[in-house]
C-alpha cells in the first residue's frame, strides 16, 4: 500500500486532478448534509436518533469515487455519507431522517436504515457486524453470476470484536469473493475507547493474517491515500484477486449519536484530530496542486445550495399515510400472515 500519496497521484495527470476535485466535492457534500442533519435534529425535525460521520468523509468519498455504479455498498447506522455519495437523492435522504413519506425508505427505515438499492447502496445495518456476512453473499453472487461487481462493506472498530466479523472474513477469504472490508477506526465504540476492549492495537489490520489477508493500515483522513487504497483493493477484487481488509484510522468530530456530547474524549485528542480534518487539508492540497480557489468556492456554493434545497424539500414532504404500515413486508406488497 502507498505511504506517500503524492507519489501515486503525480503522474496520473490532469484527469486525476479532476478526480481529486470531485473527491473534494463529495467530502463537502457529506459534510454539509450532515451539518444540516444535525441542525434539523436540534430543531426536532429528525426523529429517533442519528449517527454523524463528520470528520470521516474522506473514506466514504474515496470509495464512492473508486466504485463502479453497479458495485454494492453495505454500511452501518453511521451511513448517511456512504448512502449519499453513492448517489441517493439528498432530499429523499433528509426526508427519511424526518420520517416523511417521500423518504428513501418511505419513512420505515429512518436514519439507521438508509437504503437506495437503485444507487447500489444496499443498506445501513444497525446491528453491529451483521452486514459483514451479507456483503460476503452479495460478492459471492457477483462472482457466480460473473457480473464483475464488487461489494464494499464499511464497519467500525468496535465491530471487529463481534463473531460475525470473524465468520464473514474467513468465508470471504476461503471463497475468494470480490469484497472489500473497510474498518473505519474512529478510535471509539459508543463511549468506550476501542483499545480498552481489544486484544490487539489495530483492531482490523492486526487480524488480517488470521484470514490469510494482507494487513492494510491507512490514514483515513487523507483522501488521496484513501482513494488509491480503495482503487487498488477494488481493482484486485474485480480482477479475481479476492477480498481485502482495510483499516482506515479516523475520528468523528462529534459524539456517537445525537444523545452524546462526547465528553469522555480528552480535549486535546479532539483538538488534534480536528486539526487533521480531512476537508480543509485537502482543500489546501488542491490549491497547492494549482486548482483555482474560485473553482473550489463555486463547488462549495453549489453544494451548499443543493443541500439547503434538499432540506426545504424534505420539510415540505408529507408524512407517510398510516396505510403504509401494512405495505411491503412481502413481495406482494402487503403484510398478510393469514388468508
Amino acid at each position, binding site marked *: 500500500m502507498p505511504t506517500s500519496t503524492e507519489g501515486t497521484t503525480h503522474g496520473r495527470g490532469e484527469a486525476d486532478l479532476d478526480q481529486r476535485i470531485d473527491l473534494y466535492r463529495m467530502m463537502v457534500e457529506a459534510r454539509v448534509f450532515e451539518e444540516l442533519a444535525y441542525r434539523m435534529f436540534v430543531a426536532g425535525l429528525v426523529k429517533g436518533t442519528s449517527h454523524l460521520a463528520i470528520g470521516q468523509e474522506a473514506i466514504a468519498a474515496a470509495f464512492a469515487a473508486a466504485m463502479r455504479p453497479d458495485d454494492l455498498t453495505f454500511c452501518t447506522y453511521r451511513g448517511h455519507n456512504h448512502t449519499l455519495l453513492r448517489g441517493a437523492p439528498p432530499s429523499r435522504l433528509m426526508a427519511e431522517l424526518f420520517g416523511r413519506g417521500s423518504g428513501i425508505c*418511505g419513512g420505515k427505515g429512518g436514519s439507521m436504515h438508509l437504503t437506495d438499492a437503485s444507487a447500489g447502496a444496499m443498506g445501513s445495518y444497525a446491528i453491529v457486524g*451483521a452486514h459483514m*456476512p451479507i456483503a*460476503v*453473499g452479495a460478492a459471492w453472487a457477483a462472482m457466480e453470476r460473473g*457480473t464483475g461487481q464488487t461489494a464494499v462493506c464499511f464497519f467500525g472498530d468496535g465491530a471487529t470484536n463481534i463473531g*460475525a466479523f470473524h465468520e464473514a472474513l474467513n468465508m470471504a477469504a476461503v471463497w475468494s469473493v470480490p469484497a472489500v472490508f473497510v474498518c473505519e477506526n474512529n478510535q471509539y465504540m459508543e463511549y468506550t475507547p476501542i483499545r480498552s476492549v481489544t486484544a490487539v492495537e489495530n483492531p482490523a489490520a492486526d487480524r488480517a493474517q488470521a484470514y490469510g489477508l494482507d494487513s492494510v493500515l491507512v490514514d483515513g483522513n487523507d483522501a488521496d491515500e484513501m482513494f488509491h487504497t480503495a482503487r487498488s483493493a477494488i481493482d484486485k477484487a474485480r480482477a479475481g484477486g479476492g477480498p481485502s481488509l482495510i483499516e482506515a484510522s479516523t475520528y468523528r468530530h462529534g459524539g456517537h449519536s445525537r444523545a452524546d456530547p462526547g465528553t469522555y474524549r480528552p480535549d486535546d485528542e479532539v483538538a488534534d484530530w480536528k486539526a487533521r480534518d480531512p476537508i480543509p487539508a485537502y482543500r489546501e492540497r488542491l490549491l497547492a496542486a494549482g486548482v483555482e480557489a474560485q473553482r473550489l468556492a463555486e463547488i462549495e456554493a453549489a453544494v451548499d445550495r443543493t443541500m439547503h434545497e434538499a432540506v426545504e424539500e424534505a420539510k415540505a414532504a408529507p408524512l407517510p399515510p398510516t396505510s403504509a404500515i401494512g405495505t*411491503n413486508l412481502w413481495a406482494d406488497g402487503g403484510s*398478510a*400472515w393469514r388468508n
Partner: protein
Amino acid sequence: MAELITYREAVARALAQEMERDETVYFIGEDVAAAGGVFKTTTGLLERFGPRRVRDTPISEEAIIGAAMGAAMNGLRPVAEIMFSDFLATCWDMIANQVAKTRYMTDGQVELPLVIRTANGAGVRFGAQHSQSVENWAMSVPGLKVVAPSTPRDVIELMAASIRDPDPVVFFEHKALFPTKGPVPDGELVGELGKAAIVRSGADLTIVALAAMVPRAVAAAEDLARRGVEATVVDLRCLVPLDTRTLLAACSQTGRVFTVEENPRLCGWGAEVASIVMEEAFFDLDQPVIRITTDHIPLPSADCLEDATIPSVSRIVEVVEKTLD
C-alpha cells in the same frame, strides 16, 4: 404413476428439481456437498450440479445465512441449510433481524428470495440441544414464511413453492420423519404455501397438528374411530401464511378442537391457533380448545424420558377421551 419414496429422498429430489429448472438456485451448508448432508438428505446434488452450486461451508452459521441473504439481494435464489434447527439460535440475528426485516425496512426495495432448510424436532435421543421444535420461534417473527411438511410429497411440493417464493422461507424438515415413506407422483411437483390439508374427516372433533405430530394425530384418530369417535385431522403444513379459512371451517364443524404440538408448551403455534379459533369461532365451540404439547422443559436425552415428554398417540387419545365423558 406414483412411487413410494422417503421423506429424506424427497428433500434431494425437490432441490434437484428446482436446481435443474433454475440455474440461479444455489445450495450451501455444512457437510452438504461431498458428504451429502449429515442426514443424507442432499446426496447426489454435488455430483449433479457441481461444487459451485452445491457448496460446503465452514461452521459459521451467521456467515451461512448472511451469505444467503446477500446473494439473494444480488440475483441468486440461495437455499441455505442449518444442520439442526437448534442452531438457528446461533444465527438468530441474521434470520430475525436481518432477513425478516430488510424488505420492510427498505419499503420493498430489497427482495430476498431465499430458503433456510433445517432439521427440526425430536425422537432420536440427541438431547436438549439437538432435538428442539422451534417453528414457533420463526412464526413469532414478522417477515418470515414458515413451512413444516409431514409427508414426502409435501416436502417436494412445498420446497419447490418455497424456492420459487420471492420472500424468505424457513423450511423445517422433521428428523423423525426422514425414514418415513409416502407416495409421490412422477414429474415436476409444485405446491402452494399457506394451504392446510384435511388429512382425515370426522364429525366429532378436530385435531390440528404439524409435521411429526400429524401421523400421531392420525393414529390417534384411527384409535378413536375404533371406539366410535370420528375425528377430523388438520395438517397445517405452513404456519405463515396460516390457512385460517380451512382451520376455522374444520373447527367450527366439530366444535371440539385439540392441538398436538411438539414445541414446548408456552407460546407455541398452538397458543396462536387456539387463540384465533376461540376468538373467531367462540360460539361454535362446545368446549375450550385443548393443547396437547411437549412439557415446558428442555428435552431429556434418555429414550424413555424423551418418549414420555413428547405427545404420544396414547396421550392424545387419553386427553380427547377425558373431554368426551
